[in-house]
């Protein structure tokens, strides 16, 4: 079936004032987001922030309580829109007693213009495993299979939910290379990840969701430079305690195994004050704020002193 192509330019994904209510919990509040063709966007935020709900609504798996979601200007449940998407979801099973080649063949049949099987297997590094049952694959191989199935339809929009969980470092780097290549072809990619390094390496834009709201939407550089603070690590004497640092213009202080780490807008001033207090610190390391710090800063509740683990 061929239908007229919607008039360009149309965003690959658009959420307009989307809210989602689960019983008494509000998972998303008035979220608006536009992802253009060719953009790679990482959605970050703590566990329970609303990332999965946002992706589920983009995919049409869930419906918004209010607001509107569109893929290529169409309802996400429209099969024509879905036929242009590839999906790699967490925590969903496959028919485990089918072989890799059979699964690729099955998923290719879902799409009108699939990639050739050989190319899919090559891209995902599964050529040698084509005759192996999915249930016999290791965790990392299963991730590669999930990726292979996601690209079967030669998608213009890829949704990747924690795509590199379970992959070793080499496989992860190979995956990044493939993602960059795929994005260079003009595909949009929407991903969630636990690895800040991954988001920095792949994403043009970082969208931070916290408590169901978008609290930041900017390139990684812009987020980190907005921090205006630096991370400091110094080696300190064994008897150093939190009290040693009392009153210094620093935050996110952690002391562990003779190393103190903290964030400071003016590291020189803080270190000078420590020197005045006769603290014999050494091995100084000062670097700009990382994406993890920026996201933690955005998602930390006011007054909370400890780090927030980014999920």
């Amino acid at each position: 079936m061929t239908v007229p192509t919607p008039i360009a330019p149309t965003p690959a994904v658009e959420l307009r004032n989307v809210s989602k209510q689960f019983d008494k919990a509000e998972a998303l509040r008035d979220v608006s987001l536009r992802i253009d063709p060719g953009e790679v966007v990482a959605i970050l935020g703590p566990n329970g922030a609303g990332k999965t709900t946002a992706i589920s609504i983009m995919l049409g798996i869930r419906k918004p309580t209010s607001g509107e979601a569109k893929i290529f200007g169409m309802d996400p449940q429209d099969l024509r829109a879905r036929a242009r998407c590839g999906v790699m979801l967490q925590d969903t099973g496959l028919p485990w007693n089918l072989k890799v080649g059979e699964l690729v063949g099955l998923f290719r049949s879902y799409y009108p213009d699939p990639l050739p099987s050989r190319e899919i297997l090559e891209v995902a590094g599964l050529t040698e495993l084509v005759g192996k049952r999915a249930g016999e694959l290791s965790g990392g191989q299963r991730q590669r299979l999930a990726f292979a199935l996601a690209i079967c339809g030669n998608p213009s929009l890829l949704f990747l939910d924690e795509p590199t969980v379970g992959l070793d470092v080499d496989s992860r780097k190979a995956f990044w290379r493939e993602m960059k290549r795929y994005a260079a072809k003009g595909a949009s990619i929407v991903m969630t990840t636990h690895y800040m390094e991954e988001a920095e390496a792949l994403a043009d834009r970082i969208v931070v969701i916290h408590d169901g709201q978008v609290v930041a939407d900017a390139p990684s550089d812009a987020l980190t430079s907005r921090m205006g603070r630096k991370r400091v690590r110094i080696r300190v004497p064994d008897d150093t305690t939190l009290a040693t640092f009392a009153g210094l213009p620093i935050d996110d202080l952690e002391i562990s195994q003779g190393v103190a780490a903290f964030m400071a807008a003016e590291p020189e001033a803080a270190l000078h004050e420590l020197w005045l207090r006769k603290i014999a610190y050494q091995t100084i390391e000062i670097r700009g704020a990382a994406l993890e710090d920026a996201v933690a800063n955005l998602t930390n509740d006011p007054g909370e002193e400890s780090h927030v683990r980014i999920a």
Partner: protein
Amino acid sequence: MSASPDTFPTPFRVAPAWPMLIRQAWAEMLQQIRMPMGLVWSLVATSVLFLFIGFGWAGQDVAGIDGKTYMMASFAAFGTFNIMLGTFGGGIASDRSARRHVLYRAMPVPPVVLLGAKVVVACVMTAVMTTLLVGTAVATGTRLDPLMALSLIGRMAIGGIPFITMGLAIGYLVRPASVAVVINILSLGLSFLSGIYFPIPETGGSIQRVANWSPMYHLAELGRDAVGAQVEHSIVNTVGVLLIYTLVFGLLALRAYGREEKRTFE
């Protein structure tokens, strides 16, 4: 690793449904074939039970035909019930348990293709099971007109449709871990009340009154009629009852599906 440098396709289209259905049905079939225990139970156990129980009625006149032939038709209904409920009730429960239904939901696959593939597989398995059963009976001395055998096989494959809707209802209503137990209890209970283990004409009126309410009984009657037995009700009546059960279980399945939709996808 290298991706092709081709451009993305421009028109918005969906894949043709028939190749998708064939692939999906083949995948379902392979999954069944690769579960040897389930396959043996679905296809062979019916013939084995028939050998143990049905042989006792050989040479006796039951409803105008040889008792063993009568029992063969009864066991065909028993096997059909188990395959239909296993494929649909068990299949849906397995998809829910492994969250495959969430993945399929994000795919450009019409739900009718997923359902249609299961229907195709269930009908093929029913036909194979009935053929094995008939083969077992013939190999052990039962004389059966080939047309009657074909009629029995066809009637089971199509007459099992009420159990598809029943399986769907169970698959969506019952917790995935409990589905197998529920199906086994239903299978044992209904087969006892439907004259599967003993001919109903030999048991007096009380079982007959209860059997009239059992969908498995009506499917068995459809089979018994195919092999020339005198049946209690007209074939139109039997088909009508099966249609009513299809509708009732279908409505129940729709309601259960709606509940599952709301819980998982809203």
